[in-house]
């Protein structure tokens, strides 16, 4: 009887200890690693989430920008941090791609996924001065002159390059993929007529489409973009192309299960809040709050989709 009581007390104590740990989890400030410089999309979205997450958890969430090596510096900083939940960060499509294209990469199994932030689907945009009125026009024109239509995109391995490559392989096209250092120079080149089309995400070209300087021929996602509900998807037009960037929130691998759960729940709560969605949507970001498992599945799916494309483009230096 006494033994049982002691045992009971002990087990009670241990549950208490666990829950006590869990309840006290964020005891101090949380560091949020951004693997791009201040001012970009990754940074802006991170700051928005961090600001609200800080309110939900009751501790400061401090942004740290690590720039360099195409985002790899920040990912390495995140992967090597203690897996105690006090260091988390954001990850994009480029980090998944870099697993196969760089030396000393950060592999996805070095990270635990906490939640999904949202997709940033690619879109196909053409200059207003070009002859392409519809997606059909464009596809047949590219097929007639393989390798001649200049398309503005990131350097090889970047998100909009991959979008173009996925479109090429899905539709059997061959573009002249012209690399630009980021979305802004790509859009400038599109407006100036240096390239005929571009595969940057829709928010980058929306205003120019409204003013009539460019035409958006299709969105590479399952559903229409909330910012431009009148622009059809590729699927609706009979082309099976799904491509684009995405954002997810991750932590170093080996996080204690209860800490991961607290962070994951807090993130979902923040991302699902009406106020946050309004804020993010006005800034042009699509929100899709998914838990750890679904987010992991999304990232794995992207991984499987992108690897053959990279292989075809001859970019893989670090094979699976």
């Amino acid at each position: 009887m006494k033994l049982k009581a002691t045992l009971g007390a002990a087990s009670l104590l241990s549950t208490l200890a666990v829950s006590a740990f869990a309840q006290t989890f964020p005891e101090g400030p949380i560091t949020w690693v951004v693997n791009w410089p201040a001012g970009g999309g990754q940074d802006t979205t991170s700051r928005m989430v961090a600001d609200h997450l800080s309110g939900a958890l009751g501790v400061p969430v401090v942004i740290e920008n690590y720039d360099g090596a195409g985002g790899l510096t920040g990912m390495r900083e995140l992967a090597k941090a203690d897996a105690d939940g006090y260091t988390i960060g954001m990850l994009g499509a480029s980090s998944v791609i870099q697993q196969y294209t760089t030396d000393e990469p950060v592999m996805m199994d070095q990270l635990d996924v906490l939640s999904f932030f949202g997709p940033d689907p690619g879109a196909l945009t053409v200059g207003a001065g070009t002859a392409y009125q519809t997606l059909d026009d464009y596809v047949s024109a590219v097929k007639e002159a393989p390798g001649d239509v200049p398309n503005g995109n990131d350097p090889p391995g970047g998100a909009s390059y991959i979008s173009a490559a996925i479109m090429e392989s899905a539709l059997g096209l061959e573009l002249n993929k012209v690399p630009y250092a980021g979305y802004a120079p790509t859009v400038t080149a599109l407006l100036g007529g240096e390239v005929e089309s571009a595969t940057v995400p829709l928010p980058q070209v929306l205003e120019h489409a409204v003013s009539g300087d460019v035409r958006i021929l299709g969105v590479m996602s399952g559903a229409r973009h909330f910012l431009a509900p009148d622009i059809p998807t590729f699927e609706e037009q009979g082309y099976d192309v799904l491509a684009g960037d995405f954002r997810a929130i991750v932590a170093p691998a080996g996080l204690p299960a209860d800490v991961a759960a607290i962070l994951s729940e807090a993130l979902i709560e923040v991302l699902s809040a009406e106020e946050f969605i309004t804020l993010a949507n006005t800034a042009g970001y699509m929100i899709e709050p998914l838990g750890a498992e679904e987010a992991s599945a999304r990232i794995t799916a992207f991984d499987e989709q992108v690897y053959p494309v990279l292989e075809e483009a001859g970019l893989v230096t670090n094979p699976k």
Partner: protein
Amino acid sequence: MTYDLLSTIIYNLFSPYMLGLALIGVVLGLVFGALPGVSSTMALAVMLPFTYGMETAPAMVLMLAVFFSSVYAGSVSAILLNIPGTPGAMITLLDGNAMAREGKAAEAMAYALIASIFGGIIGWIFLVILAPTIATYALQFGSPEYAAVVLFGLALVAYASSGDMLRGLAAGAMGLIIGLVGRDQVTDVPRFTFGTADLQGGIDIIPLAIGLFGIAEVLSLLIRSKTDTPAVAVSRARTWPKFSELLGELPTVLRSSTIGTFVGAIPAAGSAVAVALAYACEKRLSKSPEKFGTGIPRGVVAPEAANNACVGGALIPMLTLGIPGDSITAVLIGVLLLHGLRPGPGLFENQPDLVVTIYGALFVAILLTALVAGLIGIPVYRKILAIPQRLLTAAVLVLCLLGAYAVRNAVVDVWVAIFFGAVGFAFIRLNIPVLPLAFGAVLGPLLEENLRRTLIIHRDVSVFFERPISLVLVCLSLAILLLPVCIMGLSYMRKRRIHR
């Protein structure tokens, strides 16, 4: 735009709340910008969270105040400590620090401030009057033109840097090779990374410049014995130049500001190209070009006017096209996006009040920077020189370490700064000019990327001679590069004839 709307906006801008915010922004910009390694972008990003809860107008007032004042303050560490905080300040330190070593630090800062203010105002006038026109011109700037303007810049730097030609060529080649380090922008292939992932992102220009100019300078001071003259004399010399002297610099200010505005308006061109063009242009036009680099005000005025005119220039593609010209305007667009405003071609028609508010906010920022920097900034900065030499040396070296790290929070940048500190020191000892190396590293990647992109799009180089802008620029560059060689050949032949 009705008169009522205009007067409401102006009335709002000069309300105590707005002026107070602008004042805070200017002071923070003057503190942050003067620290080496702390870019204007970083100063703006630190302020970003404070703008979440604000209305759009006060947010823009605060951000533009930080923006403009931090661009001016970049010249302070260049002049006082020979550390360029931004690529735009790499030219300012040539004459600015030389003036400071003559005991005219305060005067150099005053010249920099006056040039910055006038440069800012001229850039602002271009922005207000000609924004759509300049934007159209900027869009015509494709890869061939871009490659040509960078080639022109390199030619001008080769021309502007004094010293022996063979050594200049060696330094320039080294700089261009430094620019190759990292992943190639066109094919994503790593070059000269020596198998480390740290160098894959390339060598950042700020740690490089911190080492090459800041650390190297301090190292060569360290080996002097006490009997030598102090590096920067504290003097009771005047701060403000005479009106007549300022009047003499007016053409320089006008030319440099125009260059600064137009180059600033080309997306992603950056202030480094603008200051190189402005400095070399002034040196070319000067009657006594050999004085450049020895501590003359014009060597400070030209780059500073161009650098600050870039602010107005960079806002042109942002407001008219919604395209950020650099990382600083990218943060500003971020602020507008968070307030549900999407800058783009429709902004002028749909949101005229916002456009006018931004114009007004920049103007208020320029005026307040003049006031605060002139009355408080320069006297306080000047006090830095009152610190004993031994402590200042320690402070500068520690600041170099911290500044190099802070640029990207990357450990490798600290090593880069120390390494190039040693390289710069060796250059000073061997009497090799440093400027070709620094500008080779800045301009080399831009030239290669645009040249190769031109080939990818147009297939062959004849396109450079088919497009008017690039044709003119390429011919000018060739003239600048080949002229000295021809002159040297001629004088050599003449000498031989005399010897015979």
